[in-house]
């Protein structure tokens, strides 16, 4: 699968891994892939949001969920988690994005999977998928993003 990835898409997956470990997660999920995609300037333009905003939105989702179980994280000292030496696997949701990205690549008659193809595949995620939750939290109009990504030129 990964041999069909363009260098930029490999960088997206590497960034997704980085986002996963920074957050202290044990598996690369679709939300991390979305953050990984946001390291790419073309994807930032298409989505109309940026990496920092998306990271904060994900933190906001966590804060509301923690508030539900009675935990207030305000003022708690936290630090980014160092990269693990153990292998970080994909979640099954993230694994399912890869063949969909390949389908987008074929649809575009392109030879290599790019970050844009990964993004198109992520836009198809439905709740309760975490990328879908994040896109909703960011109030992103998926149809508009899809149109920006697929219009020629």
């Amino acid at each position: 699968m990964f041999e069909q990835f363009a260098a930029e898409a490999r960088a997206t997956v590497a960034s997704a891994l980085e986002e996963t470990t920074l957050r202290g997660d044990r598996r690369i999920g679709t939300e991390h892939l979305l953050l990984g995609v946001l390291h790419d300037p073309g994807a930032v333009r298409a989505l109309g949001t940026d990496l920092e905003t998306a990271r904060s939105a994900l933190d906001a989702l966590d804060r509301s969920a923690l508030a539900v179980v009675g935990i207030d994280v305000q003022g708690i000292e936290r630090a980014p988690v160092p990269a693990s030496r153990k292998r970080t696997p994909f979640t099954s949701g993230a694994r399912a994005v890869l063949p969909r990205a390949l389908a987008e690549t074929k649809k575009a008659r392109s030879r290599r999977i790019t970050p844009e193809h990964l993004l198109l595949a992520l836009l198809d995620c439905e709740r309760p998928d975490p990328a879908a939750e994040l896109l909703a939290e960011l109030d992103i109009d998926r149809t508009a993003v899809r149109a920006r990504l697929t219009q020629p030129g």
Partner: protein
Amino acid sequence: MNAGDLSERLRSHDPAVGLRAVGALHRLAEQVEAAAVARAREQGWSWEQIGDALGVSRQSVHAKYGK
């Protein structure tokens, strides 16, 4: 997510909220641990003392946080 949304989802017992809370607790534990270990090292704690405090071996805490 605004408060109205959230209370709505709680009323409907949306499992996504409870499950996210568990994931968030895990992330929080990792981030608080990273901050506390860094602080302990600054204050001269040995890897052994930190491992004992966390209930793990000196080796595992050093492998995770040692440079």
